[in-house]
Every structure is written in structure tokens, then in C-alpha cells.
């Protein structure tokens, strides 16, 4: 299964993402937007938009990356999504998918953004670990435990949308992970690190194949990447579960 890891100036989590896919049994490949041409995406089984600061996050996080993808391969991207192939974005990648209108995708694909990942309530970039609770089983989360911990590292992660969109997201069970407090209750800052509405940390579109997540699973792929590894024994990092879930739901399912 070939995964295109998209790159442009300022994406900077591609290497750890590459390792995560590779170690999970996928065939990842870097694909730089400067080399991306119409028709190329067909050669891949999955698209991954990594974290970072594409184009410096100037204007707005993810806006320039999204605009350039749209200008270059919007039709191909839409077809990719409509064919049901998986698309995943982490952090800056999530921001890109929102700006593209692929997420929340309450009604499939939208030509205009339906939501925003706005500046954190703290008005600061913050790098810290958070607890997440799973709220929906998707190909990205089916084999993920109920409660996991992952790191966030962003300045713009506050999920916002109008009331109707939020209602629809909730109705359609599109929230995959929410931030929670360590004891499982509704989180205040810093457990909800950015002030996201309904504590939303990760979403899937209405088709179930486009997934965006603010925290970084690829940075918690190995047990030793967790900050508390000398307190809690783990075989693997919690982020691994997301990649493993994909592997089991897609590759194993194919071979079954």
C-alpha cells in the first residue's frame, strides 16, 4: 500500500511520519508539491499531509499549502476522496484538510472551508502532552484504546465552526478523539490545550475516509517517545495504534 507523504517548504514532520508508516507495514514515499503533477495521485493508495509550518503558516496555518494543492490537483484530490481512499492530516496537515474543505466534510466535500483551526486561546504555540478519548470507530481508530496520550505542538488548533456544522458533526459521529482531563472528565486548559469547541481533537469526514488530528501520533510511535516511559511500561507508543489500526483495517482486510 503506497502512501504519498506530501511535502512543501516548511513541512517538517515528514521523516518521523515516514518511519511510522514504514514500520507499520506501508510503503511511504515523499512527494514534493513542486514535483506534483495532475494524474500523479492515482499512483497512491493513501495521502498523508504531515505536520510542520508549510510556507511558514504565513497568512494562516495551512492556507497556502491548501491553496496550492487546490490550484494544482483539486480534481484529482476530490476523486481520490470520492473513491474512498484514505487521506490523513496531522497538525498542519489537519489545518490543510480543513482549509481544503475536505474536513469536516459533513456532506462529503465542500468547495469552501466549513470550519477553522484558529489561534489557541492561550495565544501561544505550545508543546505539551494531552490525554485523548476515543469517540468513534473508524479505520483510523478501530484498534485504538479508549484513552491514549499524545503530544500537541501548535499555535493554531482551536477548532471552530458554526453551530449547525457542529451539530451535524456530532450527529454524524464524526468526532474521533476529544481532549479529556487525566481523570476522564471534561478538560479545562491545559488539558484542552487550545480551547477547541466540544474538546475536538480529531475528526473524520462523513464518508469515513478523511481524518485530521491535531496531536502528533507519529511522535508517539515508539514507547521511548512518551515523556513518562520511566513510569509507565508500554510495548509501543500510543500513536502506533492509529497506524496499526489503518494497517489492520485496510491491508489485513484486503488479504482476508
Amino acid at each position, binding site marked *: 500500500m503506497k502512501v504519498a507523504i506530501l511535502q512543501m517548504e516548511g513541512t517538517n514532520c515528514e521523516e518521523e511520519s515516514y518511519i511510522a508508516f514504514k514500520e507499520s507495514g506501508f510503503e511511504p514515499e515523499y512527494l514534493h508539491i513542486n514535483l506534483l503533477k495532475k494524474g500523479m495521485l492515482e499512483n497512491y493508495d493513501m495521502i498523508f499531509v504531515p505536520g510542520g509550518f508549510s510556507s511558514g503558516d504565513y497568512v*494562516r496555518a495551512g492556507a497556502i499549502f491548501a491553496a496550492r494543492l487546490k490550484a494544482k490537483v483539486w480534481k484529482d484530490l476530490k476523486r481520490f476522496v470520492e473513491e474512498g481512499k484514505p487521506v490523513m492530516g496531522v497538525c498542519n496537515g489537519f489545518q490543510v484538510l480543513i482549509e481544503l474543505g475536505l474536513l469536516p466534510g459533513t456532506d462529503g466535500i465542500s468547495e469552501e*472551508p466549513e470550519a477553522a483551526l484558529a*489561534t489557541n486561546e492561550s495565544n501561544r504555540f505550545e508543546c505539551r502532552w494531552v490525554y485523548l478519548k476515543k469517540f468513534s470507530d473508524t479505520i483510523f481508530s478501530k484498534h485504538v484504546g479508549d484513552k491514549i496520550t499524545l503530544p500537541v505542538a501548535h499555535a493554531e488548533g482551536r477548532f471552530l465552526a458554526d453551530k449547525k456544522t457542529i451539530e451535524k458533526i456530532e450527529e454524524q459521529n464524526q468526532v474521533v478523539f476529544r481532549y479529556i482531563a487525566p481523570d476522564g472528565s471534561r478538560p479545562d486548559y491545559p488539558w484542552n490545550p487550545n480551547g477547541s469547541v466540544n474538546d475536538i481533537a480529531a475528526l473524520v469526514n462523513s464518508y469515513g475516509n478523511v481524518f485530521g488530528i491535531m496531536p502528533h501520533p507519529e511522535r508517539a510511535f515508539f514507547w521511548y517517545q512518551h515523556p513518562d516511559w520511566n513510569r509507565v511500561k508500554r510495548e509501543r507508543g500510543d500513536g502506533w495504534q492509529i497506524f496499526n489500526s489503518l494497517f489492520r483495517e485496510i491491508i489485513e482486510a484486503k488479504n482476508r
Partner: protein
Amino acid sequence: MLKLVVVVKFKEGIDDPEGKSITHSLNLLGFENVKRVNVAKQYEIFVDADISKGREIGEKIVKKLLVNPVIHDYELRVEEI
């Protein structure tokens, strides 16, 4: 040559953490009577085009890149220079 001036603001009701943080800092610095600060971005875009096309180009740029309609309002001014 045209100069397109675009000011991008937050929509009414959308929280502006930067504005809040500046308000707080100003209060701390002794400007206690500062009640609120709104922060907006202003882009001056210099385009080689005819004035008749100015607004159209401006709107396109705004839509394609500068604004997320869920959270932003904008103003666009076209000047010939």
C-alpha cells in the same frame, strides 16, 4: 500599477486571543483604561493590472488565500498608483 489593500479581521463573536493578550499586557503596563484590542492583518498587494480589473483580482486573491469565511470578515480597497 495597482495597490490592493485588504484588511482581514475576525468576525464578530469570534474570540481573538491576540487582542486579549495585548489588552492584558497593556493593562499590566499601566494602561488600565484600555478596554479591548482587536487585531487585524493588512495586506498591501501590488499588482500590474488595469484598474477595471482591480476589484475582481482582489476578490479572487482574498477567496483563494487570505480569508477563511468561517472566522474572517474583510475589507478591500483598490488604488491606482
